[in-house]
């Protein structure tokens, strides 16, 4: 899929974002190589979600720059819609369109934005649904599905446009533990297929298993970055250690 196997898919350089007087992101640097999974961990309010929203141009950054496949996307001259077409996003609250069936939710963007024919879009959607174990739900409306099913549909919707990069914003936070597994299994499969992903997550065990790179955010700063083994096995920063200790005490790692 990628043209160059070494240059990063997503790169951020000293990104700064403020809301009024509070600095939400401060000098954030990030590199996401192709076919890797980057996990963003940290307490609520540490800036994980904002970082993802900035990458998808849902937020204007104050300073710094972001590149997608070597193209600067924070340049005010670029068309944000063209950038977003190459990035898939899955939200914590699913954000499925309640007035459309599962199939319509999935085929909306391929048909309206990417100009795929109805037959083509539906065939692709059904194939993806089948793969994620939702083959019989194509005609159902979102409100009829369980949370886990809705979130898997949301993932299919993001995948249907064949994105270059997937952003997952705490996609399991609204699910009960039983359903978390089925969603994480999907993410694991996507990793095996070589999808490039960035995920903000509270599932530390999962982050340790699938992430190639883990970033610990604290107060809007990437305080520590490394492989999963390094961050979870031998954190250097005192704050990282404290955060992970609390997670372990809560029995979540």
């Amino acid at each position, binding site marked *: 899929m990628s043209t160059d196997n070494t240059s990063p898919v997503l790169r951020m350089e*000293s990104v*700064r974002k*403020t*809301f009024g*007087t*509070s*600095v939400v992101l*401060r000098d954030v*640097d990030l590199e996401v190589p192709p076919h890797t999974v980057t996990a963003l961990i940290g307490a609520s309010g540490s800036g994980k979600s904002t970082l993802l*929203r900035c990458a998808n*141009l*849902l*937020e*204007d950054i*104050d*300073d*710094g*720059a972001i590149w997608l496949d070597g193209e600067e996307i*924070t*340049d*005010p*001259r670029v068309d*944000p819609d063209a950038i977003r077409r190459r990035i898939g996003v899955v939200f914590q609250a699913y954000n499925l369109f309640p007035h459309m069936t599962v199939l319509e939710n999935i085929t909306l963007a391929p048909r309206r934005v990417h100009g795929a024919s109805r037959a083509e879009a539906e065939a692709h959607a059904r194939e993806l649904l089948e793969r994620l174990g939702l083959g019989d739900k194509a005609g159902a409306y979102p409100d009829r599905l369980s949370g886990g099913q809705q979130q898997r549909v949301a993932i299919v919707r993001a995948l249907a446009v064949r994105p270059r990069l997937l952003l997952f914003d705490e996609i399991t936070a609204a699910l009960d533990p039983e359903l978390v597994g089925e969603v994480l299994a999907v993410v694991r499969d996507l990793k095996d297929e070589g999808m490039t992903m960035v995920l903000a997550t509270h599932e530390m065990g999962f982050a340790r298993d699938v992430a190639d790179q883990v970033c610990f955010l*604290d*107060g*809007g*700063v*990437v*305080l*520590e*970055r*490394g*492989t999963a083994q*390094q*961050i979870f096995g*031998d954190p*250097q*920063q*005192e*704050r990282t250690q404290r955060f992970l200790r609390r997670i372990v005490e809560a029995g979540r790692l």
Partner: protein
Amino acid sequence: MTVVKDDSGQEAADDKGDMPGGGDTYVPSQRRLDRERHKRARARRATAIAAVSTLVTAVVLYVVVVSAPGWERTKETFFDGHYAREAFPKVLEGLWLNIRLLLICGVLVLVLGMLIAIARTLRGPVFFPLRVLAAAYTDFFRGLPLIINLMIVVFGVPALRLQGVTVDPVWLGGAALTLTYSAYVAEVFRAGIESIHPSQRAAARSLGLTNRQALRHVVLPQAVRRQVPPLLNDLVSLQKDTGLVSIGGAIDAVRASDIIAQRALNYTPYIVAGLVFVALTIPMTRFTDWVTARMDRQRAQGGTT
């Protein structure tokens, strides 16, 4: 492993709440300055385009109207300064009646509309007749043309010669307006009530609230807030339709201009009355927009999209 910020563990926490560019050492980069310069230039260009396009539109409209073959004659019959000056105070006097009608009918319409809407959404077999009546009421008065309704009430009720019932066209006209507009507003409220997700009612009932309490404390507040824009829309419409009470002989702004126009055989007073209504409606429309925008802002997640 890369330790990204070697000594900043404490520092990052310390200046968390600082003003941007205040206590911390942040200095905008050249990149940011360039980007902002570009955005400013783009904003200037957009303003210039808007100005030019407005100017061109205005000039074209002006030329089309003024070069029309009948313009001189039209100007005399519709835009005569003398009659405008004569009509203006009379129209304003009449307008006071329109405003009073709007205020009284507006309140009555909101109350009556709400009651009808609630009657239509009541559950339980006991309320069946009430539901049917409410539905019949809205069906009938939404379908009946306002002007016919007005004529029936304003001319029909006095014809009955009932003891103690007013024959004042203002009161009767107001009653007719209230009848019609209550039906519209009831439907607006009902649409609002039904648009509240059933899970809200379920959550309220699960807390032990009765159906009535759930409606009063959970469903109605959300429904009303959601329906504010269409409600204001109906009120603006009501404001204009208060002019129709003049068919019964009440002297409102429309009738006041009509009297002069009939006598002078000049249409300028109508233009004056029309403009006065527009002037009254614009603040209300802006207010509607402001309320809607404020509600959208409160609800929407942050972001530029």
